């Protein structure tokens, strides 16, 4: 699971082109959208595309998005729950 979280962090940084941020700056439980990184709803939609494209997991409404993007761990949990074979 920790490896999966580390992989997700790299993908988030790459997708959103967060130039000055390293995976270590992204705490597993830090608020992802609306937190200190300054990420907003448009970034969330960009991550929706990446997650569907890379993991085949859909996050197709705002309420679900708010839950799933609350932290990297919540996101990893959701992907794992939707596609158990991916995160193992």
């Amino acid at each position, binding site marked *: 699971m920790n490896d999966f979280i580390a992989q997700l962090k790299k993908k988030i940084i790459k997708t959103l082109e967060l130039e000055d941020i390293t995976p270590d700056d992204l705490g597993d439980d830090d608020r992802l959208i609306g937190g200190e990184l300054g990420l907003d709803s448009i970034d969330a*939609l960009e991550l929706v*595309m990446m997650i569907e*494209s890379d993991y085949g997991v859909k996050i197709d409404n705002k309420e679900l998005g708010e839950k799933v993007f609350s932290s990297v761990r919540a996101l990893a949990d959701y992907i794992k729950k939707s596609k158990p074979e991916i995160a193992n």
Partner: protein
Amino acid sequence: MTTTRVYITGIGIISPLGKGLAETKKAIKLNRTGIKPVTLFPVPHTPLPAGEIDFIPTGEVPRTHALALIAAKEALKDSKTPPDAIVLGSTTGGMPLTENLIKEKNLDPHLYRYHATGSVAEYIAKKTGCTGIVLTVSTACSSGSLAIKLGLELLRSGKVKTVLAGGADALCRLTYHGFNSLQLIDPNGARPLDQKRKGMSVSEGAAMLLLSAHNNPPENAFAEILGAGLSCDAYHPASPHPEGVGAAEAMKAALKDAGITQNDIDYINLHGTGTIDNDLSEAKALHSVFPDKLPYLSSTKGAFGHSLAAAGAIEAVISVISITENILPANTGCETPDPALKLTPVQSPIELKSNEGNVISTVLSNSFGFGGNNAAVIINKTDKYKQNPYQKLRSVFTVTGSACITGVGNTNETLNVLKNNGTCNGLVNIEHISEILPKSKIRRLKLLPKMVLSLASLAYEQSDKNIKPSSIYFGTGWGSLSETFDFLDKLYESGEQFPSPTDFIGSVHNAPAGQAAIWFDAKKANITATGGDFSFEQALICAELLTRNENEGVMLIGADEHHNVLSKILDESTALDSFPSDGGGALILTRSNNPGLKIIPSFLGYSINNKKIIHFLIQSLGGAARINELFGAVFAGIPAGRNSLAREQLAEFQSIISFNKPVIDYRKFTGEFASASAVATVLALQYVKEGAIPSLSGTEQCKLNGKGILLLGFGDFISTVEIQNQLG
């Protein structure tokens, strides 16, 4: 003060609910819907509901142009003369064709000649024989209403007697997949105001109104445009202000412009897209503008879908139908109104009986768009109210600050290099230029919005800072090419599954101006004009028409980016230049009478239908004697793609007025790009201030002896911008 009244004397419309006014009326009365799963292009998922017109264009032009022409022809069917002016809103332009060509990897420039949003209005001008002012505005979903507002002001100004105003947009992959990537499409079809609503249905269409200025209503008048108001949220690139503050401001401005109160409104045609956020924000705005009692209201987007730039114009036609037929159109698709909105929409069409005193006389139509662009139009039964007197138009602006960026750097760097080498062409070094912008604010922005924010900041820093700009006027020939290309590239690369929402939001032509509004908290008009090589001049004319308040600061910007793939296939002039260039200019303007540099937009006309245009131009400038007396040099815009036509026009101008002072072909040193005139304007301001022009790309240096510089644009249009140190 003046009181010219503006009447609608011709109407043309095509939408998923039919072609022509008669079919549209019938569809409204029968509460038909035009929303069904998309078939226009294959999609890799269950096709989502959209508003599609059963129509295949047969000619050489893209779908948007063909739709616009159908509406224009109907609007003009009883006119014996061409319209004096055309104002058209469009966001897609030739995109329906362009996106197919890009998908096929066909990069033949000839096939892209109708790509520009501005080419729609130009095509209509050519087909209708118009020789006057032609403006294209691209402010996303408020474009159609903005076009009507600009038409209204053109007529009030007395510059013209008739204006063909409206909007056109065709359904295409860019808008369908773009809105889908934002999760703003309702898989069940738009259900505006419904508690289960999930989004809009993207649609297409065109509507054109022939507007005429009269002192008394002509016999053929359908209705009157009583007033219109504009505002900008200055809040977010794509989401409306959650409290609807900007929307309320636009409605209040429209009521003020019309000289009536909220109690005089009988029916509101809502923006009502059906997205969760829009409907909530609009509801809050309505409650703040109509605190006591709400008039009848409905959104017609459940039936017509959201046709983006056409929507405001289509809904103006629906408003006219409401007045002339005394009917309340239904809020199609809404089964259970969302209690959170506290609104009671008209559920099914109601034909009122006028003998019982129920008369729809005055209608408010709302249109809101990306970039927080808001517009509201008030349409009125002929002569119900007296026309509110309004201030006479003034053309003169005082320049309080200016800046340019070019291939060699910012204003000072450009002036220095020009002095030494006589040229400043090349590509903008955006890293260098945008160093002044905080990194966190520009993280998601690509080239054009960075250029625009840099220009705006530089111009403001250089101004006296007494007046902060509250309205933004932006001209761009091609818009954000990087975002547009990247959106399509990613869309096709992923089998049309995973486009970038960020690129979609950034690809709309008014995205950079929306960013500038947020930057400056500029909450008044936010206009993006997209008229090819004349976009900057069109933006200046829009500012002239919409700015009357002396204390209002205006930010005027013109900018274009060079894109490695697109620029050469879209812009003929760029293709002919061996050295690619881009850049732009920005000015801070006021209406104050303080001493200082003055700028006056004095002429814009479509040259293709008018062999005598140079005579009109000279006449509009006050004749040969005035031109020779006031101007010490001409800066001529001669786009390489129109070289022979432009040189003929220039030669005719020089010979008629015996102009023997320097004529400087500025594209020789700025390079070839659509907004080169914005750079030329900023440089000309500097030279007028200094009283001399250095040697520029082969011309001799010259003294201006206190005189100004006349900027002339040649080609398919002729434009003039006067720059003087004080008024002559």
